[in-house]
């Protein structure tokens, strides 16, 4: 088995060879500018782009004309939220989002707050879910946009998107959903789910990095946006800049595979994930599942190994590529804002490890991971004063901790 093994599919995915094959001609042979209308080089490139647009639209139940290409989800999120805020400012300046969104959403909303907009940040349930009731209670007469993720990138929790979408349509409020983690893992249908704006990214679905798109509804209601990048008026004026043709071809192929292989991929990942969790829970005590066991991506397992700090855990399983909600692994030295918002406690956040299962994960790899995770947890608990105290029957919440780190 080749080491290290990749278990961080939420961060990015390896490109599917079928996607690479589709892209290759567009780097060299078919290199035209899709905006060149005067010759065959341009026409061929444009044809490839339109084919990709149709593949993407089919994957999310949209019309190809509703797809706007971007450099990825972060740009699409900026375009959706800022674009709506600026276009509908006269109607209202209130936006509803949640505390567990990706930083691209949170930081964009913070930017708007500085410019006179009001943002309500919903607190999730303990499982990380945003309820329909919470959204309903937050809506005001001046609410112009609800921005909630389809599935959370850290814990994999799925929001009740269809119900929230229906509520937004009933109230005449636009609904944007960041579906970066959801596409290819759970069914996404902008019609049935009442979504007005949606973003997705190539590199999360076995496609290339640096390419993504924003779905912008064209009717019932027609969504209008203020462009955030000025230039040649590409993408119907919503996003100027020469199209990344090979990237777009790759995104199209990745979306086609996400649609055709959805059931197979989801079944494969969830079987391995469930097998992994059953093995871990059988071998170790004091393991906490972060997120919503029932409403969860098939690819995600976020576990807190109590009394073991996340970064030391990652050091102990160096042949397994995972990430942690521990402060020590992030540049900010803050533990995960998602786990914090869920109220799981900083102590559990420091002990959390996120495992991702994907298209190329094998059972052999999972067996290897189980063996190494269990061994590392056992070893680090032997080193843990907290585990020792718990074994002695001490309730850690009653301990008067002295001093403390500088976090």
């Amino acid at each position, binding site marked *: 088995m080749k080491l290290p093994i990749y278990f961080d599919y939420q961060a990015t995915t390896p490109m599917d060879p079928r996607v690479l094959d589709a892209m290759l001609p567009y780097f060299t042979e078919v290199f035209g500018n899709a905006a060149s209308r005067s010759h065959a080089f341009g026409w061929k490139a444009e044809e490839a782009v339109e084919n990709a647009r149709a593949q993407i639209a089919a994957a999310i139940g949209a019309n190809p004309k509703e797809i706007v290409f971007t450099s990825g989800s972060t740009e699409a999120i900026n375009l959706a939220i800022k674009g709506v805020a600026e276009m509908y400012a006269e109607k209202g300046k209130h936006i509803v989002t949640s505390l567990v969104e990706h930083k691209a959403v949170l930081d964009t909303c913070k930017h708007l707050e500085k410019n006179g907009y009001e943002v309500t940040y919903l607190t999730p349930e303990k499982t990380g879910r945003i309820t329909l009731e919470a959204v309903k209670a937050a809506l005001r007469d001046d609410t112009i946009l609800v921005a909630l993720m389809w599935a959370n990138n850290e814990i994999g929790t799925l929001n009740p998107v269809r119900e929230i979408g229906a509520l937004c349509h009933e109230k005449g409020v636009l609904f944007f959903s960041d579906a970066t983690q959801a596409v290819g893992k759970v069914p996404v249908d902008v019609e049935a789910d009442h979504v007005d704006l949606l973003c997705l990214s190539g590199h999360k679905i076995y496609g290339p990095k640096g390419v993504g798109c924003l779905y912008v509804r064209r009717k019932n209601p027609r969504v209008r946006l203020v462009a955030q990048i000025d230039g040649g008026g590409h993408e119907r004026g919503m996003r100027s800049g020469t199209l990344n043709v090979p990237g777009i071809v790759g995104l199209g192929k990745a979306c086609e595979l996400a649609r055709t292989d959805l059931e197979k991929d989801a079944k494969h990942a969830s079987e391995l994930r469930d097998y992994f969790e059953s093995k871990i829970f059988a071998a170790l005590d004091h393991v906490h599942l972060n997120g919503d066991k029932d409403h969860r991506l098939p690819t995600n397992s976020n576990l807190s190994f109590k009394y073991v700090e996340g970064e*030391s855990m990652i050091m102990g399983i160096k042949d397994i590529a995972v990430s942690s909600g*521990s402060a020590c692994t992030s540049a900010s030295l803050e533990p995960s804002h998602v786990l914090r918002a869920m109220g799981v406690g900083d102590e559990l956040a420091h002990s959390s490890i996120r495992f991702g299962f994907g298209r190329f994960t094998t059972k052999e790899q999972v067996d290897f991971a189980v063996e190494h995770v269990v061994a590392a947890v056992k070893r680090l608990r032997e080193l843990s004063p907290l585990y*020792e105290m718990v074994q002695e029957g001490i309730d850690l919440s009653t301990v008067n901790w002295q001093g403390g780190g500088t976090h």
Partner: protein
Amino acid sequence: MAYSNKVIDHYNNPRNVGSLDKAKATVGTGVVGAPECGDVMKLQIEVEGDRIVDAKFKTFGCGSAIASSSLATEWIKGKTLDEAMQIKNTQIVEELSLPPVKIHCSVLAEDAIKSAVMDYKAKQGAGAPLAETKKS
């Protein structure tokens, strides 16, 4: 994050892991840090006369925290209490090549040593009067 070879060595082969009997009069125990901060160190010393004859630790924390406390136990063994109190976190930073974001791990290790020594001294003070007080 890249770790220095010394941090990796202490992480893989931590010295002096374990516990001493904290009820014993000759054992001093220091517990510093807090679980919600992601670091808790327990460092214990066994003292004969004024010399540390044994030291043990257990740490909940990142690799650098484990390495800092492991190194601390290695350094204080055989030292007098006064010598142990002289150990500075900057020496730990230097020895382990800790990056700036990990300096707090070394501070915690210094605190753990001091806390263990204070605990031992408090125990001695609470029992028989200290030798110094008998001096004329």
